[in-house]
């Protein structure tokens, strides 16, 4: 069973901040940002009130799936340094309460989205919550090394929901935003897991470096990076991105490839060889390369979406190179 057992009565009582923490506010802020970009890029006049409510629904829906994730994963969260302080494994919130919060907020966010925007957007939001909480959390995460690749779809859908909230449809350009986040997820997460794989191994989560090894992970990061950059350039050819976007996507893409290449050539994620005095230094140097790519990947995605957002808000005419 994956669910958390009831905490002992000697633990600290649950504060409202613990319930807020169940909603993963940091993930929520990223979701709000990408969903807002999708909504603005749709270039459709929509009441600011309804737009705000739609974004709120997407944020609450993301929070609800975070609570469901923390309910189900309490056992593995308790084994990992990064997550053992979360409210359920720490015993501050009971698993059943996290489940109840997740289910109630899911229902409220989807119903309100349907009422305020449209039922197509509400359906997409419901699918995203289901995909993250059931397909990724309950199934893929503990079963396959492709967990974050396929599961990344849940994190990639918010701009499509934002677009759908504004227009009631999801054209090619909306799915292009989704594809950017989808292709960005593997190099981003695998770079992180290269220097946190011990934690995942302890918890029995089949992350790529744990199962296939560090060298294979670094190769796959490189391949995904090669695929990611052209995908990021594509909006400049489909009438979505303008000249500033093209410059950011191109320049940032070059830096991304450089960092991914350095990571490929490094020894990131490999255990130190005790017979070699330089081993420890090599591993440290490799971890630095993985950290560099991880940190830059966040900046790159933020810059891409911020540039698109700014161009559409300021009325910059998009390029149509094709």
């Amino acid at each position, binding site marked *: 069973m994956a669910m958390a057992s009831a905490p002992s*009565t000697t633990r600290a009582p649950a504060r409202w901040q613990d319930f807020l923490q169940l909603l993963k506010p940091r993930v929520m802020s990223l979701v709000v940002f990408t969903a807002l970009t999708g909504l603005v890029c749709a270039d459709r006049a929509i009441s600011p009130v309804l737009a705000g409510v739609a974004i709120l629904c997407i944020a609450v829906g993301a929070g609800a799936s975070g609570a469901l994730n923390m309910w189900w994963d309490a056992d593995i969260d308790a084994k990992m340094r990064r997550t053992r302080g979360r409210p359920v494994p720490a015993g501050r919130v009971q698993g059943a309460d996290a489940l109840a919060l997740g289910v109630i907020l899911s229902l409220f966010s989807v119903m309100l989205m349907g009422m305020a925007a449209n039922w197509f957007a509400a359906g997409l939001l419901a699918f995203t919550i289901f995909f993250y909480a059931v397909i990724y959390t309950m199934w893929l995460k503990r079963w396959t090394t492709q967990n974050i690749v396929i599961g990344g779809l849940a994190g990639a859908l918010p701009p499509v929901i934002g677009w759908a909230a504004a227009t009631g449809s999801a054209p090619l350009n909306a799915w292009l935003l989704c594809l950017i986040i989808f292709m960005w997820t593997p190099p981003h997460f695998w770079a992180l897991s290269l220097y946190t794989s011990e934690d995942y191994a302890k918890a029995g989560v089949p992350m790529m470096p744990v199962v296939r090894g560090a060298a294979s992970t670094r190769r796959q990061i490189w391949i995904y990076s090669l695929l990611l950059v052209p995908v990021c350039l594509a909006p400049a050819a489909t009438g979505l991105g303008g000249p500033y976007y093209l410059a950011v996507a191109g320049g940032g893409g070059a830096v991304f490839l450089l960092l991914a290449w350095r990571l490929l050539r490094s020894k990131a994620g490999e255990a130190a060889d005790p017979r070699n005095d330089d081993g420890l230094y090599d591993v440290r140097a490799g971890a630095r390369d993985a950290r560099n790519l991880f940190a830059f990947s966040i900046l790159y995605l933020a810059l891409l979406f911020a540039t698109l957002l700014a161009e559409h808000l300021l009325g910059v005419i998009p390029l149509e190179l094709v």
Partner: protein
Amino acid sequence: MSDPARESETEAKARRGRNVALAVGLALFVILVFVVTLVKLGGNVIQRPF
């Protein structure tokens, strides 16, 4: 759930905090539904057959 008669000062404070947060959340939700209704109906609210 702890017995209110036996709970400590910390537990009582945490419970009050949770109750206030829930009340604020519910109030915001009601206001939100009200505002969404006004915006969705707009001026059409007075165009009724009676």
